[in-house]
């Protein structure tokens, strides 16, 4: 930098030399006052107010050299100062740049150091962790060891206490012995040990005792060995029996296993095996006859059992796999359909069963209700009352209806009777008219011989004639009864014996009985046949009818016959 500055300085010098030309260009004789004023302005701006270039002469062709020199001097000092400042600044700059370099170098160095130390730290961490682990394991080992040490210590302690106890006991005993010995040595009065028996007792087995000889010792030995041998034989016998049992069981197992494995014809190896087993069996049986406990036979048996068992196991495994395969194939099989139908059947049956159950349940519930209600007297009575009340109400209703109907019936009956009476009357009137007309006619036509007889006979004959149609017309009643009644009618005097025709007869004659003419009486309701309630009234009416209207019947009948 400084060299460039210097260069600038240097360059400024030639520039100044060359600039002389410029300066000369700057200032010419023409523009001197302007130049002067310009320079003064510049000097003012530089802060050199006191220094001014003055024109020596007005018109400014020349300048005051003193002031010019002063100005120049001032400018030079300024310049020098600036240069010094510049130098200083350059020096400072140099310093700072070197500082900076230094610091940067330090920085990089420290960074490297830091990295290194970080790596070291991680490495140390790792080692620390491993050491911690080791510490833990060692601590656990230490714990176990401590525990074992404690256990051993406790064992040692108990043994020590046992030993000390025994030792103390022994010491006490020796002390007692020593004392006794002392006592004995001092006493010297030895109490002789003796046995005082009244008399000898016989031996327990009653025999005499024997002398001790070598023979007896030998016999003792022999007896001892005998008893030992006995015991061994007994145990050996039981073990042999057990062994034989177990062998039998194993043989049985082997046979059964062979049997299980052999019946499949597709397996050749089993057949071969069966053959070889047959051989083995033969071999075994022969061996059995020789010696049961023969080592080889036993080994062979166990080996063959093992083989068979392995085969059986393989077979079972195969079967298992086959079974699973078959399971998978089951869908496309016929069996599936069967099973489905079977299942449907089952479902149906289950449903039926369910329904039946529900039904039974409901029944049971109702029964329970009944039973339970019957238990509670009060409520039962109440309920019963309710029921009877209902029934009573119903009954009342029906009675009312019945009453209504009866009333209706009576009314209609009344109407009927009225109508009948009217009709009767009209009929009577008509008959009378007719009769009179006929009489007149007859009288007009024929000579009178016996009016009475004729009339009566006419009446009779008429009646008889009339009775015939009456007979014909009347459906059920016996004519003689009617004719008698009619005969009774011919006499004008009222006969007491004349029975009143019954209601049914009346109705029949009037065609009011529903069995023959129910269709006629459109306006009539249904008449109960057995109504005897208003017979009394009717009798009265019929009496009235009887009096003069009896011919109405015949007329009516006749009318009917005629119609």
């Amino acid at each position, binding site marked *: 930098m400084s060299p460039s500055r210097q260069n600038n300085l240097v360059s400024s010098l030639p520039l100044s030399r060359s600039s002389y030309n410029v300066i000369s260009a700057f200032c010419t004789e023409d523009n001197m006052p302007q130049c002067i004023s310009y320079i003064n302005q510049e000097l003012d701006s530089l802060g050199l107010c006191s220094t001014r270039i003055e024109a020596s002469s007005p018109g400014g062709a020349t300048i005051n050299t003193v002031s010019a020199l002063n100005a120049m001097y001032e400018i030079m000092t300024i310049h020098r100062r600036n240069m010094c400042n510049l130098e200083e600044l350059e020096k400072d700059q140099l310093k700072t740049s070197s500082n900076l370099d230094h610091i940067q170098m330090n920085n990089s160095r420290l960074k490297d150091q830091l990295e290194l130390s970080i790596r070291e730290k991680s490495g140390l961490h790792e080692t620390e962790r491993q050491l911690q682990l080791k510490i833990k394991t060692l601590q656990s080992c230490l714990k176990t060891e401590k525990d074992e040490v404690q256990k051993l210590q406790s064992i040692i302690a108990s043994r020590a206490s046992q030993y000390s106890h025994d030792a103390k006991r022994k010491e006490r005993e020796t002390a007692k012995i020593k004392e006794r010995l002392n006592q004995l040595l001092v006493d010297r009065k030895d109490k002789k040990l003796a046995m005082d028996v009244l008399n000898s007792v016989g031996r*327990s087995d009653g025999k005499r005792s024997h002398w001790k000889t070598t023979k007896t010792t030998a016999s003792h030995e022999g007896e001892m060995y005998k008893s030992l041998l006995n*015991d061994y034989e007994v145990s050996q016998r039981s073990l042999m029996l057990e062994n034989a049992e177990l062998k039998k069981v194993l043989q049985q197992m082997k046979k059964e296993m062979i049997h299980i494995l052999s019946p499949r014809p597709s397996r050749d190896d089993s057949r071969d095996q069966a053959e070889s087993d047959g051989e083995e069996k033969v071999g075994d049986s022969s061996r059995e006859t020789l010696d049961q406990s023969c080592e080889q036979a036993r080994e062979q048996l166990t080996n063959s059992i093992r083989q068979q068992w392995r085969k059986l196991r393989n077979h079972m495994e195969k079967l298992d796999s086959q079974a699973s395969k078959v399971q998978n194939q089951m869908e496309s099989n016929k069996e599936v359909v069967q099973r489905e139908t079977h299942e449907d059947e089952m479902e149906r049956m289950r449903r039926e069963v369910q329904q039946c159950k529900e039904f039974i349940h409901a029944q049971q519930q109702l029964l329970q209700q009944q039973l339970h209600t019957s238990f509670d007297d009060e409520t039962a009575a109440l309920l019963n009352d309710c029921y009877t009340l209902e029934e009573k109400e119903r009954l009342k209703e029906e009675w009312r209806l019945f009453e209504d109907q009866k009333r209706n019936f009576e009314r209609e009956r009344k109407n009927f009777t009225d109508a009948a009476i009217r009709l009767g009357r009209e009929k009577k009137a008509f008959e009378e008219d007719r009769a009179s007309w006929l009489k007149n006619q007859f009288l007009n036509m024929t000579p009178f011989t016996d009016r009475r007889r004729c009339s009566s006979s006419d009446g009779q004959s008429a009646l008889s004639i009339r009775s015939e149609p009456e007979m014909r017309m009347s459906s059920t009643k016996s004519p003689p009864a009617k004719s008698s009644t009619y005969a009774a009618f011919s006499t004008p005097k009222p006969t007491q014996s004349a029975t009143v025709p019954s209601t049914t007869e009346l109705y029949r004659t009037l065609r009011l009985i529903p069995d023959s003419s129910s269709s006629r009486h459109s306006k009539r309701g249904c008449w109960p046949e057995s109504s005897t309630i208003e017979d009394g009234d009717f009798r009265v009416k019929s009496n009235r009818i009887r009096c003069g209207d009896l011919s109405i019947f015949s007329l009516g009948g006749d009318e009917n016959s005629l119609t």
Partner: protein
Amino acid sequence: MNFSEVFKQSNQLCKVSPDGKYLATCVQYRLVVRDVETLQILQLYTCLDQISHMDWSSDSLFILCAMYKRGLVQVWSLEQPDWHCKIDEGSIGLVSSRWSPDGRHILNTTEFHLRVTVWSLCTKAVSYIKYPKACQKGIDFSRDGCYMALAERRDCKDFVSVFVCDDWHLLRHFETETQDLAGLEWSPNGCVLAVWDSCLEYKVLLYSLDGRLLSTYSAYEWSLGVKSVTWSPSSQFLAIGSYDEKVRILNHITWKKITQFEHPATINNTKAVVYKEVVKRPAVCSDDLSLHNITIGNTLFNTQSKYEICPTPVQLPVVKPDPDRANPKIGISTLAFSSDSRYLATKNDNMASVVWVWDVQKMSLVAVLEQTTAVRCFQWDPRRPRLALCTGNTKLYLWSPAGCVSVQVPTEGGFQVQSLNWHCSGDSLILLGKEQLCLCYMDNDQEDK
């Protein structure tokens, strides 16, 4: 179940004769012989001093009474009450006295186990056996009465001598591979002798009758070992109870362990039935506390108890033993096979109030009986699989595969049952209290509950 009245006895000395007809009891220095059925006194003998030990001879004709302090043994005859016999050991002292299997010899162990003196009642002859070992069980007779095994210690080594009981001829004498022999026992068939070491070493050795070592069994090292050993009546099994609270069963063919029974504090086995004794105190009404009621009503203060079946899992009470003391109260101290070898009853000293019953056929736990206090004694019925046990209170407890029952002994004054013995027929039990005894007659026609 009937209970007889209470009789006096001293020192828990009360034994039924081997033929089951007589009952001999000691009261201080008197020997009382009663008939078992009627309990009438048949004979009364007087000894010279307080009787320390009493035993019947095998043919039920003689009874020996030993007085250890005086060093005397007196023998009484049942047939001839006048007959007398007195054996004086003199200054050498007496520590234990027993009959030989033929009922005609008496074996006295002198003080300090200096020697065993064999006195013959037939010939008045005396034999000596030197260096007998002072241990838990140093002498054992085979069941058929032919042989006697005696443990000896010479020069810091253990030996076993086998004698023929006929004439006390030494049949075999062999060294055992034990550090400190603690006991020996013949198998019921008389062919195998089981020998076990002290509790400092777990070692069980099996010797045949002729002295050959058949097998050695050691379950573990260093910890305390064998506490109790018993044969099954059929000689098929040897049960070893040890300090590690387990019972190991060896079989007689291979002498190897076939199973081990553990006694944990929590029972999770659902097949076993856990019977827990539950005490019901009768309610005492304050109005009734009159003198009359208090004196008469012993039953008022007698608590009723019954068994309840507890569902598993069950927690049993455990008492931790003092670790510093010798012979700690931990481990299987009592083992007993039933007479048909079907069941095994065990007691773990850790849980002293619990009796465990195992089925040997199935090799599994059948029942657990938890009592209110420590079980003092249990014994199997000699005829059938029925276990009787007592815990020092006034009750008798019976277990059978059908169930469990607790029976109050109906005596006045509170009879505390300390130990019990079955009669050889299995029809009655002899219950021994501190100073009293009582007989309990079983009703064996009907099924016991």
